[in-house]
């Protein structure tokens, strides 16, 4: 039992707390608590009316039990009753219980609000403060609705006591933060600003928090506060340490108010009025000077309070970013702190310098401390300080010191704390990319990263190195050579195998001339790692192998043997098995031309924000990685810089999702990328619904002969499609991928057909899926239009897309012999049953590719029907709910003229015409 028990001791409560403390086990504690709960419950339910004291005691016990971590589901009503007690302690306990336990239980809130209203109008300052505290603690919308009008009146009324003013100011701030719409600006606002001049330091201290928040939201309305704040600050800074009596804290005059004033000034640009500005600069200089004076006390409280003001002043100097003299002084001061014996100051100095590094005036000055910072990274005993050092190195990095900084970070990584490794890896990867002058250094750095901290290298990082190598042909040979060497290590990280497999599969030919890295040596090296790798890596290696067959025909038999062995072709993992089977088949039946087309080198990736950067931003939370910094320090010659490679965006496979490209479509149907532009930006900023004219159908046409792929992509959004059809039914999966790191809100899609709603929020980097079931009722030529709306940041994005549902999707192939075909052909001889087009070839006239497309169309490709072997003949039946439409097709290529003649006959003229139109765009 404590010696002190001021005010009214509640003996029963003290006994209960002792009992709990004496419990030897958790079970005993729970038992004791349950006993007490039962007791209280029976008391509350009992017939005998409880007196105020007992009620208070039991409510207090419940509160104690709740604070121990147990749930409390009764007693709220008794607590509310206490509010209207005229005994102060009972009222106080009632308010405490409600502040801690009540959320927004609407039934109770009304009763509570009633009690609060009575206390607010009681003119008893103690009761008023209790009520205001309760509002601030609960802060629900119902309370804001009830009191947001009343509190400003209390705040500025002439006869309000100082202590009530303080509570009212902060209570109002709390309501303004949760329900700004309910706190209406008015005549009181100008009077609030003048509280900065109030005689009572406590009132100023409380009011300034409110004023700062209001100024941030309504800077113009409150801008008179700047000169008031400056003069108040100036008075405090120049006062002797004893002038402010109890507001002097360990010989520092009003540290809290000073910091708040400096913080308020950070809501505004530097004062325009010369006199005000002069006075402020004087204050800032005085604060910087004081830092050099000997301390007035050895107590840490003294130096903390003094330095708190100093750091806030430096923050203001950095915010103004216009006084080179002050900036350099600030930087020097922080430089001193970097070597201070107080760990706290070293930590804060590193943190402040991060922001200073982004100012053009002080960037160079910050750089002079590089050795100290590197030293901190190596020698600080405290991981959170080391982390700040790493942050600062990242912030101070530019072209001149990138190699040194990246090297130091890499060597630190070997011993870095596990908790910060992933972030360090991201930072190294970003710096290496951003400041790469020659890309061999970049490739070396990333491979080193994988070697040193392979487990922490996320897929964004290794995807990125592959994207860059693919986009920069000057580095491909070097990359191939380097990964080949890296793979020689007896134990190398799986990520290294992934990068190695991918790069050798694409560019192994560039080093194949050297007998030490001949194709077979390369293959054997990769395959020696195969069995130690996880399924996704093995799948990647299988793709690398098939690419080898294309690059080096001499490896074909070896690789086919590998693919053919049971561990591949009968692998229990369906993905591996499928790849093995398909690749084996592909390599044995396809001609070299087809192989070369299907397994072509990956086209360059489109330029976009590095996904690594997005990941770092996400990891650090909003605001942690300064965007300004990223933008401000960008220099020319960035990797993949827009415009460096004209045409980058014109032909591209799906750039995200699966880097390997091969995964999404079976090799046979993988059509070469069409030359048409896929990346058409139809987004108009906050425009009305896009009219049909701007409907994007470039993506649409690519899907006539295939079912899966990327329908649409721009900077923000990627829409992928997977679809399957059977008879007159179809199912389409739409995948909406958010490519940014910011959430999309109010995401809606509408279709001129019925559509299940999609989740309205799409998180940054996330993907949501939508399924559409399709039934073909009758034949059609217009595609359904999908309208997508969402908010990205503030801007409304609006997008209309033609869904690639075309009449040919409902084809059933029909095999028939030559006789049958011509007989039917003749039956469909009415002029309107035939549609014909003669058109120029848009793509190479490769027989295999044409065949693949015709199969993709859904018809049966009939062999040995047409007397001319160059021609293609197909047949199929379109299934609709109402009828079946038989179709015959004949495609006659003329290689010399690079032209085609396409003829379609069907039992329905609209179908012939539509199919002819669709197909004419495909070859």
């Amino acid at each position, binding site marked *: 039992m404590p010696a002190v028990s001021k005010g009214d001791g509640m003996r029963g409560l003290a006994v209960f707390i002792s009992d709990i403390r004496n419990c030897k086990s958790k079970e005993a504690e729970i038992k004791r608590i349950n006993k007490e709960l039962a007791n209280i419950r029976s008391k509350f339910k009992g017939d005998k009316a409880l007196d105020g004291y007992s009620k208070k005691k039991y409510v*207090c016990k419940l509160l104690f039990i709740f604070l121990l*971590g147990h749930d409390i589901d009764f007693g709220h009503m008794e607590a509310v009753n206490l509010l209207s007690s005229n*005994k102060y*302690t009972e009222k*106080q306990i009632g308010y405490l219980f409600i502040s801690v336990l009540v959320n927004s239980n609407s039934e109770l809130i009304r009763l509570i609000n009633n009690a609060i209203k009575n206390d607010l109008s009681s003119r008893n300052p103690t009761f008023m403060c209790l009520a205001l505290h309760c509002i601030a603690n609960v802060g629900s919308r119902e309370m804001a609705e009830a009191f947001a009008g009343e509190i400003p009146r209390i705040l500025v009324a002439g006869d309000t006591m100082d202590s009530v003013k303080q509570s009212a100011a902060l209570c109002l701030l709390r309501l303004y933060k*949760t329900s700004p719409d309910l706190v209406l600006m008015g005549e009181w606002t100008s009077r609030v600003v003048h509280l900065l001049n109030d005689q009572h330091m406590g009132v100023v*201290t409380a009011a300034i928090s409110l004023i700062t928040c209001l100024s941030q939201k309504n800077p113009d309305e409150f801008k008179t506060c700047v000169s008031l704040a400056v003069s108040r600050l100036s008075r405090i800074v120049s006062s002797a340490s004893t002038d402010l009596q*109890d507001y002097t804290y360990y010989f520092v005059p009003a540290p809290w108010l000073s*910091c708040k004033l400096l913080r308020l000034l950070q809501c505004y640009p530097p004062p325009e009025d010369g006199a005000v500005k002069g006075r402020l600069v004087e204050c800032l200089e005085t604060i910087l000077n004081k830092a050099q004076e000997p301390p007035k006390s050895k107590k840490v409280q003294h130096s903390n309070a003094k330095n708190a003001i100093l750091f806030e002043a430096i923050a203001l100097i950095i915010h103004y970013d216009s006084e080179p003299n002050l900036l350099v002084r600030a930087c020097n001061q922080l430089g001193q702190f970097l070597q201070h014996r107080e760990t706290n100051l070293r930590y804060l100095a590193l943190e402040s310098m991060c922001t200073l590094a982004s100012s053009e005036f002080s960037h160079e000055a910050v750089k002079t401390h590089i050795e100290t910072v590197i030293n901190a990274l190596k020698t600080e005993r405290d991981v959170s300080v080391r982390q700040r050092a790493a942050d600062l190195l990242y912030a101070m990095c530019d072209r001149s010191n990138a190699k040194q900084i990246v090297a130091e970070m890499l060597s630190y990584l070997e011993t870095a704390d596990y908790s910060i490794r992933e972030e360090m890896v991201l930072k190294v990867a970003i710096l290496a990319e951003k400041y790469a002058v020659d890309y061999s250094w970049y490739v070396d750095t990333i491979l080193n990263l994988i070697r040193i901290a392979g487990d922490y290298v996320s897929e964004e990082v290794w995807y990125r190195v592959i994207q860059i190598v693919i986009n920069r042909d000057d580095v491909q040979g070097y990359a191939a050579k380097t990964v080949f060497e890296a793979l020689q290590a007896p134990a190398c990280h799986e990520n290294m195998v992934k990068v190695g497999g991918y790069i050798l599969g694409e560019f192994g030919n560039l080093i194949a001339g050297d007998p030490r890295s001949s194709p077979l040596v390369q293959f054997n090296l990769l395959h020696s790692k195969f069995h130690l790798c996880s399924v996704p890596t093995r799948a990647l290696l299988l793709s690398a192998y098939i690419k080898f067959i294309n690059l080096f025909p001499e490896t074909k038999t070896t690789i086919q043997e590998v693919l053919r062995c049971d561990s591949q072709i009968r692998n229990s993992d369906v993905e591996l098995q499928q790849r093995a089977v398909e690749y084996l088949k592909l390599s044995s039946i396809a001609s070299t031309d087809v192989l070369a087309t299907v397994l072509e080198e990956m086209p360059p990736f489109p330029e976009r924000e590095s996904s690594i950067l997005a990941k770092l931003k996400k990891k650090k939370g909003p*605001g942690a990685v300064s965007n300004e910094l990223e933008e401000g320090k960008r220099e020319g010659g960035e990797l993949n810089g827009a415009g460096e490679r004209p045409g980058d965006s014109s032909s591209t496979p799906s750039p995200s999702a699966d880097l390997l490209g091969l995964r999404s479509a079976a090799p046979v149907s993988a059509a070469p990328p069409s030359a048409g532009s896929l990346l058409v930006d139809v987004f108009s900023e906050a425009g009305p619904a896009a009219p049909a004219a701007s409907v994007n159908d470039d993506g649409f046409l690519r899907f006539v002969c295939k079912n899966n792929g990327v329908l649409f992509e721009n900077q923000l959004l990627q829409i992928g499609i997977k679809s399957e059809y059977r008879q007159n039914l179809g199912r389409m999966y739409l995948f909406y991928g958010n490519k940014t790191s910011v959430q999309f809100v109010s995401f809606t899609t509408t279709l001129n057909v019925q559509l299940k709603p999609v989740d309205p929020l799409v998180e940054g980097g996330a993907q949501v899926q939508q399924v559409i079931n399709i039934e073909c009722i009758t034949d059609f030529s217009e595609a359904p239009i999908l309208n997508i709306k969402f908010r990205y940041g503030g801007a409304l994005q609006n997008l209309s897309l033609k869904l690639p549902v075309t009449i040919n999707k409902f084809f059933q192939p029909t095999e028939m012999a030559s006789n049958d075909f011509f007989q039917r052909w003749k039956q469909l001889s009415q002029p309107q049953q035939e549609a014909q087009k003669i058109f120029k070839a848009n793509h190479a006239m490769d027989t295999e590719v044409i065949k693949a497309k015709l199969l993709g169309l859904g018809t049966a490709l009939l062999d040995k029907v047409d007397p001319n072997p160059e021609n293609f003949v197909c047949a199929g039946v379109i299934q609709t709910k109402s009828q079946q439409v038989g179709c015959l097709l004949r495609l006659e290529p003329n290689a010399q003229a690079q032209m085609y003649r396409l003829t379609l006959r069907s039992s329905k003229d609209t179908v012939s015409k539509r199919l002819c139109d669709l197909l004419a765009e495909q070859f």
Partner: protein
Amino acid sequence: MMRFLLLFSRQGKLRLQKWFLPMTEREKKKIIRDMTTMVLARKPRTCNFLHWRDLKIVYKRYASLYFCCGLEDQDNELLALEVLHRYVELLDKYFGSVCELDIIFNFEKAYFILDEFLMGGEIQETSKQSIAKSIEASDMLQETMEEYMSKPAF
């Protein structure tokens, strides 16, 4: 503004929790767990600041109790350390060389004192004298009020 203030013992027992923004019980429990494990794992003489999610964590140990608070990005860490210190001073002044047991047995007083000092996560009053005076006044008020109430009615 300060988002929360926690007092816990070296064994990780929570002695006081104050939340300045509404939060679900789940979130609260998660924060309590994270704070106690993070802070208790720190070695002595390391710095008093940490980053956790988007918050700055400032903590300090006084005898057997840890005082730990979560700050928003623009808040001043050093000043927050002194907020903790001033709170300790206020408790000390009220209880007379305060110890953990005082806070356990008089937890409601610890809350009342905190309410005089901070509101909505902002400083309401920094003067030790003013706060002590108003706490005393309310103690007095309750005594006089009780005397008054116990007087026989006319």
